[in-house]
């Protein structure tokens, strides 16, 4: 956000030095918690995999790279080997390649869902908290209505009402997710609003808009960021759950939840089909949780 960054008009040569200073401090604090470093390493690996999947994956076409996923029925259900690290599925597709490409989908789900949830929830919480009164009450009661429905059930009904597709699954998850951000932001704004610097901002003659964006938002960002990193894992998990229930991405999309679901039919004989996508889900959720815990310690905030 605008003002925590060094401004250009301050002497430029030292601006760089200050930026490095700030960065060093952040890195230092982050490294105090080894778990968060592990989490960051896991997440960074997944990001790299997602970006370079077409080059890393031995059989990109099996994952649908450059068209529909290829089929090789002559190679179906091969157990893990040097050729097919994670084995092959019922259509002879390389599961390793599909898991790698699945990273792209999972990260995309996490990012899109959270971006949507945050961009609805945070403004609602900001306005409700800052304006207060009847407007705030109304907004928060609407939020409560959404919170009173179990998330997976609401997501299920949204996906059923619309078609089963990855886009609709993301929509459904965002619809159940934003109220948590509204509530978190609302609570934070209420406590920040009492700070004297908010009153001082008004006393200077700043508009409400300015006060909200300069003085309130930067001071509620830390818990929101922490919650986002913790939620990334959960969002991916929910998307996988929807995929598993057949309401998310449809086969043969290389989505982890969908793959686990398909592989279920061939357990325990072809154990590798479900296991490796499952492990991927496990690892990415773990990574985001570690990272989120680390960030929470770093910012020293409470998230629920």
């Amino acid at each position: 956000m605008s003002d925590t960054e060094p401004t250009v008009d301050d002497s430029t040569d030292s601006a760089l030095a200050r930026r490095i200073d700030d960065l060093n401090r952040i890195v230092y604090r982050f490294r105090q918690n080894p778990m968060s470093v592990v989490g960051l390493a896991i997440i960074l690996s997944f990001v790299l995999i997602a970006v370079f999947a077409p080059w890393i994956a031995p059989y990109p076409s099996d994952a649908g790279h450059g068209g529909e996923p290829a089929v090789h029925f002559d190679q179906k259900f091969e157990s893990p080997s040097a050729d097919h690290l994670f084995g092959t599925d019922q259509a002879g597709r390389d599961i390793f390649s599909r898991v790698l490409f699945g990273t792209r989908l999972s990260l995309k789900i996490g990012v899109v869902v959270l971006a949507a949830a945050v961009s609805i929830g945070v403004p609602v919480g900001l306005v409700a908290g800052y304006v207060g009164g009847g407007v705030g009450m109304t907004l928060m009661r609407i939020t409560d209505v959404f919170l009173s429905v179990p998330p997976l059930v609401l997501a299920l009904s949204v996906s059923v009402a619309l078609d089963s597709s990855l886009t609709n699954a993301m929509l459904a998850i965002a619809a159940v997710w934003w109220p948590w951000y509204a509530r978190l932001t609302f609570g934070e704004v209420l406590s920040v609003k009492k700070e004297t610097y908010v009153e001082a901002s008004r006393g200077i003659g700043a508009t409400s808009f300015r006060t909200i964006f300069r003085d309130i938002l930067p001071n509620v960002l830390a818990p929101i960021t922490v919650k986002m990193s913790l939620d990334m894992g959960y969002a991916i998990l929910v998307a996988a759950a929807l995929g598993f229930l057949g309401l998310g991405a449809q086969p043969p999309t290389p989505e982890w939840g969908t793959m686990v679901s398909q592989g279920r039919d061939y357990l325990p004989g072809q154990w590798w089909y479900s296991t490796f996508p499952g492990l991927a889900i496990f690892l990415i959720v773990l990574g985001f949780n570690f990272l989120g815990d680390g960030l929470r310690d770093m910012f020293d905030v409470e998230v629920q």
Partner: protein
Amino acid sequence: MSADSPEPPDAGSSSTESRTAIHRAEDRAGDPLVSVRDLKKHYPVSDGLLNRSKSYVKAVDGVSFDIFPGETFAVVGESGCGKTTLGKTVARLYGATDGTLTFDGRDVTELEGKQLRRLRRDVQVVYQDPSSSLNPRRRIGNIIREPLDVHDVGTKAQRRDRVAELLRMVDLPVEFRHRYPNALSGGQKQRVAIARAIAVEPKFVVLDEPTSALDVSVQAKVISLLDDLQDELGLTYLLISHDLSLVKNVADRIGVMYLGNFMEVADSRALFRNPLNPYTEQLLSAIPVIESHEQSLKPTAVEVQGETPDPQNPPSGCPFNPRCHRRFDACDAVEPELVEVEPGHLTRCLHTPGEKREEVRKALPDGVSFEERDGTLTD
């Protein structure tokens, strides 16, 4: 703009006495800069879930006074007496429940929106606790520049220069602009808050206990800085404080506040030499002294009695009567008015001395009559 003064003008503090004397003579003749009439600020109190109650805390209850250009008007009183509420209402941070507020000849009681924001250019506030009045996520330079940005003063380059100049004016190194508030000490933070307050060259600054959150060693420096800035920039101050000894050296006039109202208003010297109100007497005798000759400068020692009453349930009659060492029988029956006993010296007490005594009593309702027996009023 009193711009290019690289070295801080430190001559001001020693000549405070003579300066205030001059100010008094000159300024009182003119029109007041701030004029407060019958100002009230009541807070509704709800009891429990059923929001039916109509009880109010009368934090400020019918206060009137003027502040003249260039002077320092101090409001002193115990915590909970409404002095901070008074200051913030006068600064238009809070809306008044009733009464009028005139600034520079203009009624500003009802100003809203854009016009109110424009008024803020002339009226600024320095808050009690500098640790919470500065946004921890913004750099000092940006904090000080904020009022300039808000009021669109000058070009970007001019604002940057102005920030450097303001830092110099409050005796802070220019490099501090890059720091965050948590890297500064309490006194330094308060200097930043002061720089922010004077950035847009206001006419009037409300100082809400500007030193009470600071170490004693730093308090004097901040006070002398405020004093210098007042000389340099011709500022008018409303100084809120609970510390009479601090106010003594700085204030031109003092209003002693108790339960939302003034008990006594007087020139600083007159108040210390000749306090007319028993409450002021108690406050003065509570000032700690070190040497015995200092003790002799104070009025007869009177012990402060009891605690401040619950503002939701103020005592009947004179608000101070339960704690007063000169209490009469009639004191809980009649609420005295604030009367001018000597030119510029007002007090609220049935003990009003001299020729005004009759006037005070004439103003009393018919049911209550007074006779003096053995120095005691009875009805």
